[in-house]
């Protein structure tokens, strides 16, 4: 190790440079810099660090050269080397020697290796930035050389710069070149355009061949006429090479020397002053479109990628665009390197593979289509975000071109990835982390938990991506809402994983892409599964822990008067209270009565939970139920009143038989009462069976079948609506209800009229009986039964009583008449009602055509208008 002193690698490299080139340190500065760069950039070896492998390779190499003796000799030497412990990196030294090895039979092929090296160095820097650094050719390149193709005065500089290339150019041997074309500048002037085209349109036109080109480059085709140089010799005209270089800049959105962005026309234009043949001008403007498209896409991503409010979906979109642009830049860098190589080979390269505008046109065709799609997307997505953006992208995927579709699908998978992430968080955990309002479920933080189900969450219609159906979106909303409802309202702490088996969420955009391709199948399945499981769990919790169904039944029984014995008893108890004015009703009294009623009837066997909720509320709580209850209660009370009337008639009938003058009035009373009883019975029948029971049965079936809470709520709402409209409580049947109210009022009036009749009749009866009694008593005592004075008094009183009878009769007649006219009007309204069951009710009310015979209106409507919808009445 003594002689292998540890000088720094830089010093060693410099002395190596001097040694090999045979020049002083100052002269090799360029080369040295280059060497440092190459070694620095290739620090990690790409090969196996195995001495055995390297030695085997050396042997193979020697055998290939048919030097068996030397192979043996090498083995011997290698063995000797292994016995020495001086070298630590034997493989490295051997590898170096191997790679420097040359076949002695092929003199000076030392230049062939550059392609491989170039190919290896390229991917490292395959970007749009210029890459002079790691390329071996850049060793001595000056910037002056780059202007060769650009300047219109190449005529003078072309030759002098020739020497500069050949200094470093890998391939050419200048003598042969220049010997082959001594009169180049003279002969080339007349080179026809046609032959130039023939040269520049070879078979390999695909862009991929651009990548392979540097490696497959032919050293030189000496006979190829150098049209590039030729063109540049024409006075005043721009060479195609210069245009190509310009175009490459324009591709990146940078103004070239001749092709510049024209602000007022918003396109790239070739400088009008530059002399150029029409075809070239045409081709370059067609190519320049790429630059414009690129600028458009670039501007969008630049503007949006830093805008945080643009949201995750927007960021994904920008990232997707960036990815595409990166691909595009990669292609451009390859083209640039190609141009670079050609520059270094200088005038000599009008080979089949050189860059021309036409070739560019062909190669850039696909990228142009892609960029066009992107630019169109950018245009279309302007001002959209979130789900709306995804919809916009999705709508572009509906194209017949498979390449475009693949591109859009790829972008869509990136864009929809955050949306799907939102979605899975929502349907599996019920969490909504949507800072930028991109997801199609919106949450209103101001809504308290008691309105959570109805108001807190809503669908943002515009944000529903078009690849989701409305049904799916609604289900998604419902799933998350159910989870949140369970957590916040039911205080159910079951982990979401137990409710529904969480399937794998989307981790990568690739998963998203897979899901997107199978929206009808797997995705729908996932949503359905989550929907069923979550809803079922919610309903179970509601039924099991919160007795939802029992409460429904209780409402039916107590608020809708389903529990007959309870209601009857309550009404018995309430009778004295109900005749009093409303202002004298007190809640505590009523509560006491209710308690008594509950305890005395079958209601006492009901669930304690429900009984706890039976309470007296004056004019508050659920308005729908309250209205229905009021109506039913009133109807029920009419029935009750009529029962009382009937009872009075039955009790008093016998007593009053002794008063023949009353029989006419009583008969009138009986007729009117039975008319009313008939009416109220039919009404009750209608309310109980046609309205309540039917609707209730429907509701019960729907509730049993319900899949989620929304179904139950909807069924319940339908139930209430039907009841309200059938009970004539809605706006359409207000006139009917008014008539009904009037009928009820008549019943009450009749009750009071009959009461007063009975009261006075009974009074009269008792007076008469007393008179008779007194008469009998006196006769028994042996006195005169009556005195003339008494008899006169009695007669006068009877006379007075009998005089009231016609008054009563007429009063009753008025009452009956009024009642009948109201009923008739009610019947007319029923006939013209839209509801079928109401029209049936009218048949039942007038089953013997009693009213029809009296009222010509009824006759007309029963005859001519039956079944019609007469809107004129």
């Amino acid at each position, binding site marked *: 190790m*003594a*002689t*292998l002193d540890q000088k720094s*690698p830089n010093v*060693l*490299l410099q*002395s*190596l440079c001097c*040694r*090999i*080139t*045979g*020049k002083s340190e100052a002269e090799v500065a360029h*080369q040295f810099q*280059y*060497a440092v760069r*190459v*070694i620095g*950039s*290739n*620090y990690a*070896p790409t*090969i196996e660090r195995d001495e055995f492998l390297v030695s085997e390779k*050396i042997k193979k*190499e*020697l055998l290939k050269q048919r030097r068996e003796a*030397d192979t043996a*000799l*090498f083995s011997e*030497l290698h063995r000797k*080397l292994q016995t*020495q412990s*001086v070298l630590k*990196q034997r493989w*490295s*030294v*051997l*590898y*170096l*020697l191997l*790679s*420097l*090895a*040359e*076949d002695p039979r092929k003199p000076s092929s*030392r*230049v062939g290796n550059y392609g491989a*090296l170039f190919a290896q160095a390229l991917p490292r820097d395959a970007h749009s930035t210029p890459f002079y650094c790691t390329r*071996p050719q850049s*060793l*001595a390149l000056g910037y002056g050389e780059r202007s060769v193709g650009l300047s219109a005065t190449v005529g003078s500089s072309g*030759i002098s710069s*020739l020497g500069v290339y*050949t*200094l*470093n150019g890998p391939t050419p*041997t*200048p*003598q042969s070149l*220049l010997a082959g074309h001594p009169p180049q500048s003279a002969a080339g002037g007349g080179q026809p355009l046609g032959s130039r085209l023939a040269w520049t349109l070879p078979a390999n036109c695909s862009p991929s061949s651009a990548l392979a080109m540097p490696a497959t480059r032919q050293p030189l085709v000496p006979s190829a006429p150098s049209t590039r140089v030729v063109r540049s010799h024409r006075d005043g005209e721009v060479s195609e090479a210069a245009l190509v270089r310009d175009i490459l800049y324009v591709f990146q959105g940078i103004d070239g020397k001749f092709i510049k962005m024209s602000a007022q026309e918003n396109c790239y234009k070739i400088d009008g002053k530059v002399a150029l043949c029409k075809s070239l001008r045409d081709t370059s403007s067609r190519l320049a479109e790429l630059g414009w498209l690129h600028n458009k896409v670039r501007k969008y991503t630049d503007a949006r990628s830093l805008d945080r409010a643009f949201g995750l979906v927007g960021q994904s979109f920008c990232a997707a665009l960036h990815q595409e642009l990166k691909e595009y830049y990669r292609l451009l860098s390859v083209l640039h390197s190609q141009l670079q190589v050609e520059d270094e080979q200088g005038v000599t390269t009008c080979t089949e593979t050189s860059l021309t505008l036409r070739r560019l046109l062909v190669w850039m065709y696909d990228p142009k289509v892609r960029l066009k799609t992107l630019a169109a997307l950018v245009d279309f997505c302007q001002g959209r975000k979130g789900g709306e953006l995804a919809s916009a992208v999705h709508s572009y995927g509906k194209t017949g071109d498979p390449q475009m579709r693949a591109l859009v699908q790829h972008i869509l998978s990136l864009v929809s990835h955050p949306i799907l992430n939102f979605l899975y968080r929502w349907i599996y955990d019920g969490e909504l982390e949507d800072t930028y309002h991109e997801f199609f479920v919106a949450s209103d933080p101001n809504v308290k938990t008691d309105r959570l189900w109805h108001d807190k969450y809503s669908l943002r219609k515009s944000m529903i991506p078009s690849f989701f159906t409305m049904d799916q979106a609604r289900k998604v909303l419902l799933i998350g809402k159910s989870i949140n409802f369970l957590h916040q309202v039911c205080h159910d702490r079951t982990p979401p994983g137990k409710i529904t088996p969480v399937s794998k969420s989307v981790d990568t955009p690739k998963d998203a892409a897979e899901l997107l391709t199978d929206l009808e199948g797997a995705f729908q399945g996932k949503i359905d599964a989550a929907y069923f499981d979550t809803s079922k769990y919610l309903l179970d919790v509601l039924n099991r822990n919160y007795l939802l169904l029992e409460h429904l039944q209780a409402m039916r029984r107590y608020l809708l008067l389903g529990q007959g014995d309870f209601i009857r008893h309550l009404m018995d108890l309430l009778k004295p209270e109900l005749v009093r004015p409303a202002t004298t009703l007190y809640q505590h009294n009523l509560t006491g009565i209710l308690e008594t009623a509950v305890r005395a009837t079958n209601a006492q066997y009901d669930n304690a939970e429900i009984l706890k909720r039976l309470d007296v509320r004056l004019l508050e709580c659920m308005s729908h139920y309250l209205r229905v209850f009021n109506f039913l209660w009133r109807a029920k009370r009419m029935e009750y009143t009529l029962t009382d009337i009937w009872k009075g008639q039955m009790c008093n009938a016998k007593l009053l038989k002794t008063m023949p003058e009353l029989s006419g009035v009583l008969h009138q009373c009986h007729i009117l009462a039975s008319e009313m009883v008939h009416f109220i019975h039919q009404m009750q029948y209608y309310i109980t069976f046609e309205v309540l029971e039917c609707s209730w049965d429907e509701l019960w079936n729907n509730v049993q079948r319900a899949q989620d809470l929304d179904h139950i709520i909807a069924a319940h709402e339908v139930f209430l609506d039907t009841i309200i409209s059938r009970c004539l409580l809605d706006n359409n049947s207000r006139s009917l209800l008014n008539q009904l109210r009037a009928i009820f009022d008549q019943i009450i009036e009749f009750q009071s009229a009959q009461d007063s009749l009975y009261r006075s009749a009974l009074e009269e009866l008792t007076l008469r009986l007393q008179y008779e009694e007194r008469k009998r008593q006196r006769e028994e005592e042996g006195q005169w039964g009556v005195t003339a004075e008494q008899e006169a008094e009695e007669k006068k009183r009877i006379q007075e009583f009998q005089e009231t009878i016609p008054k009563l009769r007429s009063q009753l007649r008025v009452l009956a008449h009024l009642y009948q006219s109201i009923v008739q009007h009610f019947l007319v309204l029923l006939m013209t009602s839209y509801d079928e069951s109401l029209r049936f009710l009218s048949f039942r009310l007038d089953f013997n055509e009693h009213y029809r015979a009296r009222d010509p209106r009824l006759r007309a409507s029963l005859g001519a208008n039956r079944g019609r919808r007469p809107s004129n009445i």
Partner: protein
Amino acid sequence: MASAANANLNAVRETMDVLLEISRLLNTGLDMESLSICVRLCEQGINPEALSAVIKELRKASESLKVRKLSPNTVT
């Protein structure tokens, strides 16, 4: 002490001889001095791939330089 250093020196010389022989066999075109520089670089862990690339480039450069010097009259 001296003998140990001597033995070491011998070993180094022997190694270099062997390497030079191999280099000659493989026709690398390296002389003793370049070879010893290269060996030292390799021992410092430099990537031999890169080093060989550099050497080739240097050769090319010097060669073309020579060519230009040899034939200046043919150009003009």
